[in-house]
């Protein structure tokens, strides 16, 4: 019962972990490269979700300076970090996609297994 309560209390974390697992599973098992790239993004997003959830205090507000200084702010640090993280993830994605396009030009396929087969035949 306690475990269940723990799960309910931390549902953000649980969802993040589930997403992480889905992302990783897709990334490692699917042979299509574009699928792999999308899955990579899902995986990253799930970690970011978890990170932001860590910084969130119940009922807190966005950390923007207003006249009223009494309110609880959410921890701004994870937000700032996630920003960087997203940018990094996007750049990795962009690079991966450019690789995919180039690979397609050489092999005429986006499927990793097919490429491996072609290479082993050589």
């Amino acid at each position, binding site marked *: 019962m306690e475990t269940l309560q723990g799960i309910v209390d931390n549902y*953000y974390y649980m969802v993040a972990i589930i997403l992480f697992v889905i992302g990783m599973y897709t990334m490692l098992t*699917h042979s299509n490269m574009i*699928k792999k790239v*999308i*899955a990579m993004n899902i995986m990253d997003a799930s970690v970011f979700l978890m990170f*932001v959830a860590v910084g969130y205090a119940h009922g807190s507000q966005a950390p923007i300076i207003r006249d009223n200084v009494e309110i609880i702010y959410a921890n701004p640090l994870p937000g700032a970090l996630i920003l960087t993280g997203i940018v990094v993830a996007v750049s990795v994605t962009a690079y991966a*996609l450019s690789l995919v396009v180039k690979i397609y030009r050489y092999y005429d*396929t986006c499927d990793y297994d097919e490429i491996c087969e072609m290479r082993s035949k050589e």
Partner: protein
Amino acid sequence: MIEILNILLLLFLIVCAVGVAYIRDLLSAVILFSSFGLIMAIIWQQLSAPDVAMVEAALGTGVVSLLLIAAISKTRRTE
């Protein structure tokens, strides 16, 4: 009330992620993924991280989907 919304959004996230994993049409997968990103942005807004939400909406959803679509247009649409 807001809790329930959050939980619904989270469930929707999971559905999107699973959908991405199982759909064989890549373009649909990309669209699902961008809706995944948008929901994520809403969740972050809910978690009082508006600037993250904004970046996610612009970069994570907009640019990544754009690039993905561009890549798909250059390659093959189905898996």
